[in-house]
């Protein structure tokens, strides 16, 4: 059973109280529309034109009633033998108009689908690509659940906005405009009546909507409490049973759940009641128009014809719908824009800086000189080109030096002070010290996951910030405690270290890492599918694969973090041997937890509170009887002890 991912805080607009459009929102909207204009300008214009035409047709359809009744039915009623030819003609023309309206609706819907999903795809891809280039700092300081929600909730809200809200708002605005014009033409008096009702409807909506938002906010809070309680209790379910606490827990749940019921019932009441109220106010408006319009239509020279009344009644239905549409859609637009802002802020994060100009090339010794060339006897070299264009090649050896390095993750909270150390090619350096002493931090600096504030780090004599980051990292291998495999086959996972490796090379690496044995015992061998988040393999087996993955990359310098987690003795021994073989002939920095590792190390550095307090080999340090001696004998201070990671 894996530890459940705790969901990140949801961005809930109801919980954030009332939301409004402000200047920022318009800028965000402009940026979103920029994506639309970028690749879909023509489609978008066509869609808008089609929307406008559809709206026009729906108004024309209402006006058609007037023509039908006033121009044909009423006059023809007075004739004895009516000629229906003209009417058939008009109905036929109307039919053509309707057909055109339907087709244009289809065109606009089709186009909006393509546009909205195309834009989303672009935004998604740019966001991911931007994310890949962010410095590690970003990943270490943002909850993964929150970042995930940019890809799920936030983009989904944007999809809604593009494919529905924006076309609806546009169409509603046009419809209101057309309908209003048509209504004024038919009867200014009845139009005033409709507008009066609109004011009433708006007031009611605002009042009830406000109440609903208030209650939803309260409900959201209780819902959060209930969810939190459930999460905590279910995660601790086994403990609850060991302590026979089922009854007490159920009682607490019952109380919370009842509170949630009351709040939900209240919030829903306001939420749902809006619909029948709006619907029936619409009915009331319809009735009032019928009565008033009926009076107007009476007499010999009425202010309104019967056909006019029929058209007006249909129009009035068309009028209140878009009004409530707009108020609903504006809400989701505001929500979507809030999401878009979060997405853009991820895209706008400053990417990892890389001012390096030194690159890694293949070279060979030709006539006593190192020259750039590719071939089977190649070796790797650093290539530096100075301002005059002179090329200097330095053989990649794996010599690492740290001089007076200071570092802090946050300014004012230094983690490392004045670190000096060196590792000659092929030497093994072990870091020991309690958690939080700064061991992992040092390894994060060498491959420039983080940049130092003071001092220098030299790789074969070249400052690491001058080396192109991809080349620097290619020459540094890492095996971390957290293995992080990816979904795919075992073969693919090992090949991750070097994409062009052949199957035979993958198997060789697996053998070196001691992973071949268990892999070949799996029913599907190297083709076994694993998933990165919840693996079927044991922790130890994942560790073995990650060692193989590093072995195939064959880097000259390695950074290892030995596992401390409880892995059974047999696998542990396999891992040890794999690691030992991997370390042979390389410069190695190892965060050590095993006795054999420290014993074999060329130098052991004991870290405490960000400083190197002791250095030397195993025997030297034992003889010193200092901190290392204490650690070695397991005599740790009895004060509160840091957690093992």
């Amino acid at each position, binding site marked *: 059973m894996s530890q459940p991912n705790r969901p990140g805080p949801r961005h809930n607009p109801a919980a954030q109280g009332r939301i409004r459009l402000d200047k920022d929102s318009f800028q965000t909207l402009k940026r979103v529309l920029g994506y639309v204009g970028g690749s879909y300008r023509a489609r978008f214009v066509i869609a808008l034109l089609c929307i406008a035409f559809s709206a026009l047709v729906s108004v024309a359809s209402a006006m058609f009633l007037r023509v039908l009744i006033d121009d044909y039915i009423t006059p023809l009623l007075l004739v004895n033998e009516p000629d229906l030819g003209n009417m058939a003609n008009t109905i036929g023309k109307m039919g053509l108009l309707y057909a055109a309206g339907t087709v244009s609706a289809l065109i606009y819907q089709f186009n909006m689908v393509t546009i909205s999903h195309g834009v989303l795809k672009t935004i998604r891809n740019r966001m991911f690509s931007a994310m890949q280039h962010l410095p590690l700092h970003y990943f270490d300081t943002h909850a993964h659940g929150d970042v995930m929600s940019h890809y799920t909730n936030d983009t989904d809200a944007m999809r809604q906005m593009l*494919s529905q809200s924006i076309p609806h708002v546009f169409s509603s605005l046009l419809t209101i405009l057309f309908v209003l014009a048509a209504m004024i033409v038919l009867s200014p008096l009845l139009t005033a009546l409709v507008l009066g009702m609109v004011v009433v409807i708006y007031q009611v909506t605002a009042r009830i909507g406000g109440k609903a938002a208030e209650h939803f906010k309260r409900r959201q809070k209780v819902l959060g409490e209930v969810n939190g309680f459930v999460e905590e209790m279910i995660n601790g379910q086994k403990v609850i049973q060991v302590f026979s606490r089922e009854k007490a827990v159920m009682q607490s749940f019952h109380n919370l759940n009842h509170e949630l019921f009351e709040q939900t019932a209240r919030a829903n009441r306001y939420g749902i009641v809006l619909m029948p109220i709006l619907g029936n106010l619409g009915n009331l408006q319809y009735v009032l128009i019928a009565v008033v319009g009926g009076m107007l239509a009476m007499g010999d020279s009425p202010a309104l014809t019967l056909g006019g009344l029929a058209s007006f009644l249909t129009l009035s239905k068309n009028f209140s719908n878009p009004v409530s549409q707009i108020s609903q859609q504006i809400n989701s637009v505001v929500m979507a824009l809030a999401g878009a802002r979060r997405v853009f802020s991820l895209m706008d994060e400053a990417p990892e800086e890389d001012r390096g100009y030194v690159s890694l090339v293949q070279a060979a010794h030709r006539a006593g000189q190192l020259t750039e060339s590719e071939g089977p006897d190649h070796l790797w070299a650093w290539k530096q080109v100075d301002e005059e264009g002179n090329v200097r090649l330095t053989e990649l050896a794996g010599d690492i030096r740290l001089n007076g390095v200071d570092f802090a993750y946050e300014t004012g909270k230094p983690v490392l002070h004045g670190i000096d150390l060196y590792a000659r090619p092929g030497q093994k350096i072990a870091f020991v010290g309690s958690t939080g002493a700064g061991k992992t931090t040092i390894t994060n600096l060498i491959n420039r996951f983080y940049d130092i504030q003071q001092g220098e780090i030299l790789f074969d004599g070249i400052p690491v910030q001058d080396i192109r980051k991809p080349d620097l990292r290619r020459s540094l291998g890492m095996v971390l405690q957290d293995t992080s495999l990816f979904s795919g086959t075992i073969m693919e996972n090992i090949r991750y270290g070097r994409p062009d490796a052949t199957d035979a090379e993958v198997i060789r690496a697996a053998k070196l890492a001691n992973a071949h044995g268990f892999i070949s015992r799996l029913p599907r061998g190297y083709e076994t599918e694993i998933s990165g988040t919840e693996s079927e393999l044991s922790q130890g087996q994942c560790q073995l694969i990650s060692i193989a993955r590093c072995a195939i990359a064959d880097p000259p310098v390695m950074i290892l973090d030995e596992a401390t987690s409880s892995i059974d003795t047999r696998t542990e021994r396999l891992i040890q041997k794999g690691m030992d073989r991997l370390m042979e002939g390389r410069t190695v920095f190892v965060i050590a937890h095993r006795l054999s590792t420290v014993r074999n190390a060329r130098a052991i550095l004991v870290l405490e509170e960000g400083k190197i307090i002791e250095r030397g080999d195993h025997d030297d340090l034992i003889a010193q009887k200092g901190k290392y001696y204490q650690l070695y004998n397991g005599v740790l201070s009895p004060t509160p002890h840091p957690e093992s990671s």
Partner: protein
Amino acid sequence: MIKKLSASIREFKKDTLLSPLFIMAEVLLEVSIPLIMADLVDRGVEAGNMDHILNRGFLLVLLALLSLFFGVLAANAAARASAGFAKNLRQDLFHNIQAFSFSNLDKYSSSSLITRITTDVTNVQQAFMMLIRMGARSPAMLVFAMIMAFQINGRLALIYLAVLPFLAGGLIFIMRNALPIFEKVFQTYDVLNRVVQENLRGIRVVKSFVREDHEIQKFSDTSETLYRYFVKAEHFLAGTMPLMQASVYSCMLLISWVGAKLILSSEMSTGQLMSMITYTMQILMSLMMLSMVLVMSTISRAPAVRITEVLDEKPSITQKENAVAQVRDGSVRFRNVSFSYTGDASSLCLWPMDLTIESGQTIGIIGGTGSGKSSLVQLIPRLYDVTDGAVLVGGTDVRDIDLKTLRVNVAMVLQRNTLFSGTVEENLRWGNPDATAEDLARACELAQADGFIRRFEHGYDTRLEQGGTNVSGGQRQRLCIARALLKKPKILILDDSTSAVDTQTEARIKEALRNEMPDTTKLIIAQRISSIQDADRILVLDNGRISGFGTHDELLVQNTVYREVYESQTKGGDFDVSA
């Protein structure tokens, strides 16, 4: 499934039934408005009868207000019914889970159980609300409006019957085609999310192997697939509105043409034509709504199935009637015990074994991963039931002992242990709700926790975060031990419970247990032999079988498994500086 779920409606049955009834009343009133309107036009406007207009107008306003009234009543009932249903459903789920045994729990991951109680219930609640509102409204509207239309003019109303099959057929065609593609959309979404998640977790690996471009490619491939499926599915859906429009428009045209002819031949009035057009809108709208209800209920099927699964799960460990309410002493006997998590004799996790532990002994248990250490001890407080044989505590079969009594007397500190949000003291009281302050302090002293608790600013009132994440791993483990000690158990089981505690403190805990709780039987599972070397006896497990049971010195001589582990740990063993 429906039957199972509807059992949770209970006291909200009244509201659940009232809501659709009120809605039907509302719809009936709404549908009668156009009919009276026709009368108002025909006999009022056309006849020039002002009294009739006012008369009918008054009736219409009354109907509209009445319909508003029923609408509000229906909304109220639906709100109560759906909130209440969700409440009961959550309650039932939670209660059932409380009765789950460990083997029930093992079937589900805790995150999936949490989703079922939270998100799934909310979704089902939404669907339920929709069902008792829209599910009542749209068919009622359809039927009533149809009846009215036929009342006005049967021949004209036949037009609906002609157009309806086209609309229904079109909608079915769209749904049939779109829904399967939407399934694929959701699957692709899962893949996309997984890629993001793996990258967030494994960003150090991606960067150190310089595979950013590969990951970007992987993501954009998935993104492209998602785009394709989505566009394909929604292009089908895009036909819905135009289809709807086409139906409305064709009805209008046909009704206009036929209606005009009918009026001219005096078989119908102008007012009736106007109401026919309103009914056209109502009928087609309700059909549209009905198709939405169908789609929504298909979508909410999945959460409903997941909830039913948990409700249907039967607790596998139950209390016997007339169970023994006391535990005599701390002796433990395994009589020909075999055990498998699936209850299946072919995949045994513990092979038939006999074992006798005297009351008050300290027993160390050692063995590799999967050797069955945890499985063995979990049988003692009956967290799982044996597959065959019997486990006896104090001479009585654990299945005959009252479950609560048994678990108070057998305290177990689990490998994967949890503290709960609340103060330190509240957490400790889980062990014994009636413990005095001295009891608490005493237990904490034994567990070597009193010292660091007192150094906290608020001491025993310090608030712990969920899971106890605001204290270190070692502190957490010591608090868990103290909590177990408060039970004053006859048997204490520590399942690898001191892995994050440093060696010296671990030694002190063991010493305190030995000196202060001499009558308590202690079973200690450990990875390191040094932790249990001085136990009265050590049990060596290997692949679910007892490989040896004796003192450290005896085992070193007689037991090869033990000797191997010992040698590997002393020669190439841990330099466990961060433990």
